[in-house]
Every structure is written in C-alpha cells, then in structure tokens.
C-alpha cells in the first residue's frame, strides 16, 4: 500500500484500453440488489466493500475513471469483500476482476494508496452517508474508497458490457446525479487541511484535498 498523499497522474493517452468478456451485474434491479444485500447481511453481517479511485490527467484537470453500466449508471471499480478479507487485497482482486486483463502477465500491479473516504449504509436502501448516523448501531454496509496510484503506462481490459469513462472532477462536484450514486470522497478526505471540495491539481502530481 502506498502511503504518499501525492498521486501522480498521467494523461489518458498514456494508457491502453482493451476489452474482455462481459461482466454482468449480479442483480437486475435495485430491489434485487437490496434483497440480496439483506440475505447476505443475515449470513455474514455488515458488508464491507471497497472501491478504487483511478485518476488520469486531461486538460490539466484530474479525471476519475468510472465504469458505466448501460447509459446512465456509473460506478467506481470495486466491490464487496469476502468475509474476513483484507481490504487492500480485496481491492486488488476487484480491480483485476473489473479492469485486469485475462492474462495474469498483463494485469497491472495495483498500487493501492490511502483510504480517502468511508461511506455507510444505515438501512437496506440505496442511500449512503459519509458517516454512520448516530441512531444506527448496525449499519448494513461500509464502503471504503481508496486512491490508486497508477504508473505511467498501464493496460486495462474493460468488460464488453461496460464503458470506462474518464470523468472530470468538476462533473462530480456537487453533482451526484450525473454520475449516479458515485460518492467519491468525504469533505475531509485526503488532506487534513483541505477545504471541502477544493482540489489542487498539478500536471503530474495530484494533491487532493477533497473531491
């Protein structure tokens, strides 16, 4: 795990994107997803999921790589951890599953950075908050977002049924709808001195102070 708070970002063009077999969603609808979540909760307790923030630089502005399902719903690459699984390892597993090529030799060596945000799901609903509400003692899910340090050259294999988008930060700022429920960071993420929603970006290094 990389502990540096500085993330180097490279232009999108320095990365190569290929395709691979489709990776279908396990649930066909929100209701299904919540129902499955409920079942899993009964079996395993609170769900822990991890997501990765992969950044690229375009037009002198950081962009985040999102996977788009269909034409509307976007999400960060990541997913649910197995019971007892380590977060970092689990995230690497998920990244490989979503964006890694089928051949192990071509899979990037994921450098997982620090955790920049934690979101909580108090009920079996779609809504999540960057904190656990005080009256909830048993949240249903805890989602952690990690920064990923990409190297200059990487190869990503995107499942055929998904689209990989590089979404500029400004699109995500206070604009949850446009990218669906992608909640990236909490106001005080990244840098303790940062002001919520302020982003300092430089060409090759990205110093995030909240997204």
């Amino acid at each position: 795990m990389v502990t540096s708070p500085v993330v180097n970002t490279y232009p999108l063009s320095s990365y190569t994107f290929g395709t691979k077999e489709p990776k279908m969603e396990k649930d066909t609808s929100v209701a299904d997803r919540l129902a499955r979540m409920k079942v899993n909760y009964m079996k395993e307790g609170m769900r822990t999921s991890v997501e990765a923030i992969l950044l690229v630089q375009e037009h002198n502005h950081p962009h985040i790589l999102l996977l788009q399902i269909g034409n509307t719903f976007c999400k960060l690459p990541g997913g649910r951890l197995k019971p007892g699984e380590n977060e970092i390892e689990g995230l690497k597993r998920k990244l490989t599953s979503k964006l890694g090529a089928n051949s192990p030799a071509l899979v990037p060596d994921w450098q997982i950075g620090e955790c920049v945000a934690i979101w909580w799901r108090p009920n079996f609903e779609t809504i999540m908050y960057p904190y656990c509400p005080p009256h909830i003692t048993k949240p249903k899910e805890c989602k952690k977002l990690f920064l990923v340090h990409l190297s200059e050259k990487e190869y990503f294999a995107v499942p055929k049924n998904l689209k990989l988008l590089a979404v500029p930060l400004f699109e995500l700022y206070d604009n949850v709808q446009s990218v669906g429920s992608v909640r990236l960071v909490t106001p005080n993420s990244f840098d303790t001195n940062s002001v919520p929603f302020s982003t300092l970006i430089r060409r090759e290094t990205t110093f995030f102070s909240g997204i």
Partner: protein
Amino acid sequence: MDAMAEEQIEFGDEEYGGAQKMQYQGSGAIPALADEEMMGEDDEYEDLYNDVNVGEGLLQLQRSEAPPQPVGVGNTGLHVQKNEAPERTSEAGGSQGLNIPGVSVQGKYPNVGARYPQQEGHPAVNRPEMGSGTYPSGSTLSQKGSVMEATHDAQVKVMGFQGIPSASHKVGIDPSGVPQKIVNNPAQSLNSGANGPQGAPQAPPNQMGIIVNHPTMNENQVRQPIENGPTMLFVGELHWWTTDAELESVLSQYGRVKEIKFFEERASGKSKGYCQVEFFDPASAAACKEGMNGYMFNGRACVVTFASPQTLKQMGAAYMDKNQSQPQAQTQGRRANDGLGRGGNMNYQSGEAGRNFGRGNWGRGGQGGANRGGGGGPIRGRGAVGVKNMAGSSAGIGNGAGAYGQGPVGPAFGGPAGGMMHPPGMMGAGFDPPFMGRGGGYGGFPGPGFPGMLPSFPAVNAMGLAGVAPHVNPAFFGRGMAPNGMGMMGSTGMDGPHAGMWTDPNMGGWGGDEHGHRTRESSYGGEDGASEYGYGDVNHEKGRSSVASREKERVSEREWSGNSDRRHRDEEREKERVSEREWSGNSDRRHRDEKERDWDRSEREHREHRYREEKDSYRENRRRERDMEYDDDWQRGQSSSRSRGRSHAVPEEERRSRSRDVDYGKKRRLPSE
C-alpha cells in the same frame, strides 16, 4: 365440536402451513395440538405458534369437548389435557400429531410447567399449532417455550393479557384463554387481570374458549393484526440519537420483533425521531403499545401508536390512524402544549395539541420540543405553508420554524421548539399563511401517525442543534430546523439561514396528511417526500386536493415554487421539495396557522424577496443534491426499484426545469401578490 372443529381447521390452515392444518382438520382435539405447540416443537413452528393464540381458545374448546375433563384447572387441567389430547386426536381423526402431542405433552408438561405457566394450564392442547407431532421432542418444547415465554412474560408484564400470550398472541382469545390458563397455572398472574371470563368456571371459559378460539383462528390464519390490530406500531418522540439497539432491547420485552425501521432525513441520515416497528404477532404489538407508551428513552418519553394502513402506506401518514393515534396525538398535543405553552393548538385534526408551531423549535435540535409530536400532527397541513415561511425567517419564530420552511411543517413546530415557539409564533407568529396550512402536516412524522408526535423535531431540534443541515433535507419534517434552525442551517454549509429551513423536516412531515389541513397544504408536501418513506407521495396527492380548499395562498405558493407543475407525484415531488425549500428560505414558517396565513403571506412575500437571491444560488447547488436524495427517498419509501440511471436522469432534467420553474414561479408570484 363442529364449530370447534371448523375453527380449528381454519386455524390450522392459516397458521401453520400444511402440517398444521392437517392436524387441525383432522383432529377436533385442539388440546392435542395445543400441547404440541406448547411443547415447542420444531423451531420452524415457533413463529407460527406465536401467532396463534389458539392455546387459550383451544383449551377452552378442549374442555368443552371433553366433558370429562375435569375442571382442568390447576393440575388437573394438565391431566385433563392430556387426556383430552388423545381424545381429541381421535376425534380429529386426522391429526396424528395430536395424539402424539398429547402424549408428549404430558411428559413435557413438567418441563413446560416450569417454563410457561400457561402451558401447564393447557396442555398442549390449546395449541392448535401443534402441527406435526414434533412436540414430543423436548427440544421443540423448549423452543416454543422460549417463544412463549417471551411473549408471556412480556404480556404478563405488559398487559393483563398474559393468559393469552401463551396461546399466541392473539389478543382476542386471551380472555377465554386466560381463564383457562389461570386455572391451570396458578403462576399466571395475568389471568386475573386480563380476562373477565376467567372468573367463570370452566364451563364458561370453555364456552368462551370456543368463541374465542374462533377469533384466534381467524387471526392466525390471516396472520395479520386482525384482532388486535396490526402488528405495526409507530414509536415516536425519540431523540435523534436514540439508537435502534436501545429500542430493540425494550421492544423485545413485548414479543418478537420482526423489524424496526427508522424514519430518517434523507439528506443527512439523521433520525427523525420516530420509527416503525413490526412485531410478529399482534398481541405483542398491542402489549407494546400499552406498555411502552411513555417509556423514557434517554430521558424522553416516547409515544407508541398503531400504524394504520394508510400511514403504513404513506409512511408518514401516521395521523391517518386517527383511532389509534388520536389518543396519542391528543396526549402529545397536550404535552406539546405544556411544553410550548402553545395555546395555539391549532386543532389540527389530531388533537394536536396545538400546533405548537414550535416550528421554531423544530430546529434540528428540537429536543426540547418534545411536544412537537403533538403539534406536528396538526401542523402538518400547515406546515406546507408555514414551512416556507419558516425557512426564511424562522429566526423570528423560534427557529424551529425555520426548519419548517417546508411548509407543512407549520404546526408541528410548535411543539418541538420546546417552547421555543412562542405561542404567538405558533400560530402565526409570523408564519406565512401558507405555511400554516401546511404546518399541520408536518408533524414531522408523516408516518408515525402520532399526531403529536413530531418526534423528530422536538427532540432533535433542540434549538441550537444545528447538526444536520436542514437545508439539505427537504423532507425534514420540521425536524431539523432547530429553532435556531436558521443558524443551523448554516451548519450545513448552506449559505444563509434559510438553508436550514429547507431541511425542515416539516415538509416531509406532512406526508402525514393526517390532518385535513395538512393535506391541503401539502402542496409543499412534496418536500416531505424526502422523508423517505413515501410520504412524500402521499402528501402530494393530498396536498393537491386539499390545497385547493386551502386557499389561494397555497395555490399561489405553488406557483412560486413551480410546484404546481410538478405535482406529479414521483418526479414532482422532488421539485416541490426543491421549491419548497426555496420557499422556506423565504418565508418564515412561523405561521402555521391558517388564519395567520393571510397576513403571513404578505410577510412571506417580503421575505421572499429578500431571500430569493440567496436562495436561488443556494438552491441551485442544493437542488442537485437534493434531487439525488429525493430519488433515494423515493426508492426508499416506495420501495420501487428505479434504476439508477433513471433516477439520475430525471433529476437532472428536473433540476434544470425546476430551477426555471421555480424562478418563474417566484417571479410570477410577486407580481401577483
């Protein structure tokens, strides 16, 4: 016999799936079945049995059936039962289980007796549930026992029912059952209290038993609240920090809890101070309602009321259940009054103690408000209008109102502010007429039906609780807006005090629409939609219709917010919310009163001007967030599975249109005003 047999059969069918049914049908010997149940047969039947009160009723039947059964009271009862069981089974002819149970029961009794006083009384017989002769297995017994115990104990403590619990939660049966039990189980203290019939000697109980059984059976069959009403309750007047674990630990004393669902503000996740509780069996629910009402959670007395179908649907329409909630509401109202000194009791329907417009108090920190609950109810209607006003200026009102901005919040606020709401404020202290109308609705709880419940607000808003960004949460039922709501709002980061207003749960609260007022005013009700559980929708509808009656203010208000266009329930809700919010910023929700409305309106307008600009900018930013939130809310409340994409797309569009509408609306309004 026939009757009994029939009953049993029915019972069996309903209750227990196939196995049990068979038994029933076949065996007229209820007792046998009962025994089985009591014995605690398979785990799988536990739940089933819980529902069935048969125990009591059956016993009775048994007795009647088995004349030889001696009094059966006391020990003999046990024996008798045993005898009966076998007999019954034979009678039943079909229920193999019966026979077995009978036998097993006997053996078990000793164990059972220790556990459930009741059981002793009725040797398994009463438990129609018995179903397959699993009883024989001691384990089952224990299981049942445990279940029963829980219920029994709970019941015992809670209600006089006690007797009943053993059988199944059916309350109805209790009376009959109880006698039986008592007789058999000296331990049962309940019996004494609960059942009149008890006094009657065996014979009468038997008779009753029969009758009783019947109802039980029906109940069991349906597994619905039936007799005692629904298994759903609303518990309100809680602090926002009162956790689900705390609640569950107290609730479980009354029976098995199926689910606890808290109402939260969508934008922040903060608890609104009330929740919906579902028990597995109606008897537990009834017991809980009686026994837990007024229980102090973290130093605040809660309110427990039944959830009427409407409220259940609306989630917030707690008020709908007038019958049940009325009493509560009234209680609440009273409380509110006391607390707030509201004289205003606007009388919104639910005995709201006065609208307490406590609005000001609503502020998120409404803790003091406590009353709010009461006020909330009636206020809801007002809320709508008032809320708006509140939003803007609530400061004057006591801030609580501010929160209400939502409009409906109106009255509700009164309560919470914990007196913040100066009485005048209540009514109209400056509330815009429109709000007033709505206010009633807000009661904050749309769902809980506690008329007075304004749970969220009072406690939460403890004035000064800036906590949650009210503005974000349109649905906030008057809750959030801590009296200082205005100030609080700031907390959310919104600029301008009004920000806070929006979040006023009040808006959300309206969902309740319980009160006539509310619905009408609920034009703003849309906001409450946020309150997550669907009340928003409800409100809308109601609001719309009622609005007309309300007055033109509302109408005009609607225009402002551009809600009118959006009224569509689903999508529009969001919009309304947004617009509502804007409103709130503008107007001081203070007035919740209808009367006040008129003059409030003018004030409102002024305020609007002032705040409009602030709001606009603010709104834009917020809108988006809110939109999203709303979507979530809807999903929540409606349990619809809208695809993400869809929801997203919609908000975007709406957002844009909304802003336009809103602005448009505002502009229009001004000139008209």
